[in-house]
């Protein structure tokens, strides 16, 4: 706990042998990206607080002779003299462990298979789970819904291997506004959302879509428009026209 904290000027870090200078509190992930070094991530999304749950971004951090493992997505660089290894034996072992476990959990998910191949894994040695399982429990949907949309419509239930994402008590949630942000954000496309005849179906509920008077297209759930309009205190007819047509008119 007695590391030197340098808040004013930029600090120097070494990532995979390349040197860079960053502002204090920059995450390893960001610093690495400025150097063009890519570190795989699953639960990371710039719009939400780092959640640090998937652990696929685990890298090795060296301070002098001491070495420890940290997640790149949320480790804040605060001191001089750090060296980060994203491809060391230990870093790769951790990454492969995570990916091999996720491959066993969700055998059919392409993002995972691709990422695993990148890390040198063709298949998982563990007994395969249900091929229909696509959720890797990265929590992005939950965090987007809570932190960005502000709807708090979904969350986690149960512990350990039984953990699930869903609406409270798995019943239809009245907090859901049908915005679909969870579904768009999901890295494995496992949140089912369909649209047919002006109705969007998601999380077991039907949402009527608003029709644009200009182009005649369905564009967004009425509940979502109402919520945004109230939240941001916009004039009641602000969303009368779809986003595209509004753009054209302006």
């Amino acid at each position, binding site marked *: *706990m007695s590391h030197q904290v340098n808040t004013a000027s930029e600090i120097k870090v070494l990532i995979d042998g390349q040197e860079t200078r960053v502002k204090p509190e920059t995450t390893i992930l960001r610093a690495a990206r400025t150097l063009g070094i890519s570190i795989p991530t699953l639960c990371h999304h710039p719009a939400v607080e*780092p*959640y*640090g*749950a*998937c*652990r*696929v971004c*685990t890298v090795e951090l060296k301070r002098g002779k001491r070495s420890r*493992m*940290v*997640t790149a997505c*949320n*480790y*804040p660089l605060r001191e001089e003299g750090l060296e980060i290894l994203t491809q060391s034996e*230990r870093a790769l*072992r*951790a990454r*492969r*462990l*995570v990916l091999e*476990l*996720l491959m*066993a*959990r969700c055998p059919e998910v392409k993002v995972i298979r691709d990422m695993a191949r990148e890390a040198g894994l063709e298949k998982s*040695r*563990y*007994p395969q789970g249900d091929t229909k399982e696509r959720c*890797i*429990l990265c*929590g992005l949907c939950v965090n987007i819904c809570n932190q960005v949309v502000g709807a708090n419509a979904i*969350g*986690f239930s*149960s*512990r*350990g*291997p*039984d*953990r699930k994402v869903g609406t409270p008590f798995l019943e239809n949630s009245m907090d859901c506004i049908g915005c679909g942000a969870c579904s768009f954000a999901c890295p494995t496309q496992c949140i089912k959302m369909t649209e047919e005849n002006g109705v969007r179906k998601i999380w077991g509920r039907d949402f009527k879509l608003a029709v644009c008077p200009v182009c005649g297209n369905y564009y967004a759930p009425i509940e979502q428009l109402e919520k945004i309009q109230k939240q941001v205190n916009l004039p009641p007819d602000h969303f009368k026209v779809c986003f595209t047509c509004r753009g054209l008119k302006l």
Partner: protein
Amino acid sequence: MKKLNNFQELEQYRQQLKKQVAADQVVISVCGGSGCLAFGGEKVAAALEKEIKKAASVKVQLKLTGCHGFCEKGPLVVIRPQGILYTKVKPEDAAEIISETVVNQRIIDRLLYKDPVSKQKITKEDEIPFYKNQKRIIFGSNGFIDPTSIDDYIGIDGYAALAKALKGMKPEQVISEVEKAGLRGRGGGGFPTALKWKTCRNAPGEPKYVIINADEGDPGAYMDRSVLEGNPHSVLEGLIIGAYAIGSSHGFIYIRHEYPLALKNFQTALAKAREYGFLGKNILGSGFDFDVQVNQGGGAFVCGESSALMASIEGKLGEPRAKYVHTVERGIWDKPSNLNNVETWANVPIIINKGADWYARIGTDRSKGTKIFSLVGKINNTGLVEVPMGVTLKHIVFDIGGGIPNKKKFKAVQTGGPSGGCLPESLLDLQVDFDRLTDAGSMMGSGGMIVMDEDTCMVDVARYFLNFLKDESCGKCTPCREGIRQMLAILNRITEGKGLEGDVEQLQEMSGGIMDAALCALGGTSPNPVMSTIKYFRNEYDAHIRDHKCPAGVCKALVTYSIDPQKCIGCGVCLKNCSSGAIKGAKKKPHKIDPKKCIKCGICYEVCKFGSVKRS
């Protein structure tokens, strides 16, 4: 009772209390710890009370105290000032205890403890090996006080340390005293307490919080519970001193939902401390303000982890958070929050009272003081034992614990709770302290000690602990949620005789990865049971995998039962006890087990008096 306004009033009140208790006053202390209560301790106390009322000539004070530690022999009754210990006391014994021992000063032989080694009866509590070999600086007071009486606590110099700190020590001096004492956290990690306090004190942000971690969730562990039940003021006094040192005016206790008596006694302690002026505004006239709020834990094991605990106090989901800022700097509501274990806090008044030098003489170079262990499993003297850091495992298991029952051989001792490790016979001379246990591949944890005999299968043990951890994993991070489950699947197949060559190596590889990648210490230490059993009992893994044998005869899929026709006299006991009708045979003729019907429950093996049932 009116508030004690300053140090002088406290000292005067203490002297007055001490005078009230005559030196020859007979005190009968009945253990009201959970173990003794389960054996009927409360009825014993009620019966004694009735008898005391009847015998008007004697003046006896009866106390229902917290746990004395020797739970195996409960209900326990101690008669002071002589210090006579009666074990396994029944309500029917009450009349005799009063009329014989109290009135006529005669010892009741049948209630005395009999030493299994020397076969001698021992009269005095402090002479029996179980107690004699301990050093009970924390836990010893339990037997002397009624936990609901603040006067009892003040009578044994309670709140003197608080007065000393507030009166003559600057906060920094308190911290440096704790630092010199070398106190390390008793909640698992062994983190230097003074360093944590200092960090919290210096961290920017107000208010600062101090918290008692009373979430004790290790299966079989009950030391924190027993300290809170038996001596709640000692923990509270430690907390108040810590708050003063850190500069906090707001404390929390996060207490396990399943501990109603600990909660009740602690709440009583809080109410009394407020009434006496040890909590509230301007404590003992010092100008220092402090109070404590009670929070009940949600019941999950992981809620004992610092960041999960603090999230839970905030009313959020009790899950560990992935942040590289320690809670001591940014904890509850992002304010500096200092969390210590129950036993850690209870050490503080002792350090202040007796001084760091006195304290630092107990223990090893880097682990000071004592540690309370809950000694359970295949051990003669089940109970709570407090020993100086650095005594050997052998000393705890054999001298205090009385060794293994039924003439069985010692096989291993598991320390450190569910994610601790198993240590073999060859390490019985290991000195028990934080670093030596960690170096040996186990850990101190919160002080669980489970003794295992020769009939224990170490693969099965690893499986048992992993199964516990699988259920208690919060499921947030991948390595813990999926990794433990998959390790467990491998252990399961090994115990079912379907283990594969290379399984052990795969377990080792997974262990390394999980330790490195897990989000919190639950996942990070979860491979310990597997790693330590592989390290010390590799041959058992190999026997399961290569020879399809379980050397201890535990794994059902790998054992077969048969009857030796040479030895069987055809008494029919096994046949009568077999619930699946697998045993056939005529009277006085050798019997046979039908392997198709046998469910391998092992009852025949247990009941045969002639050793003719074979397990292989």
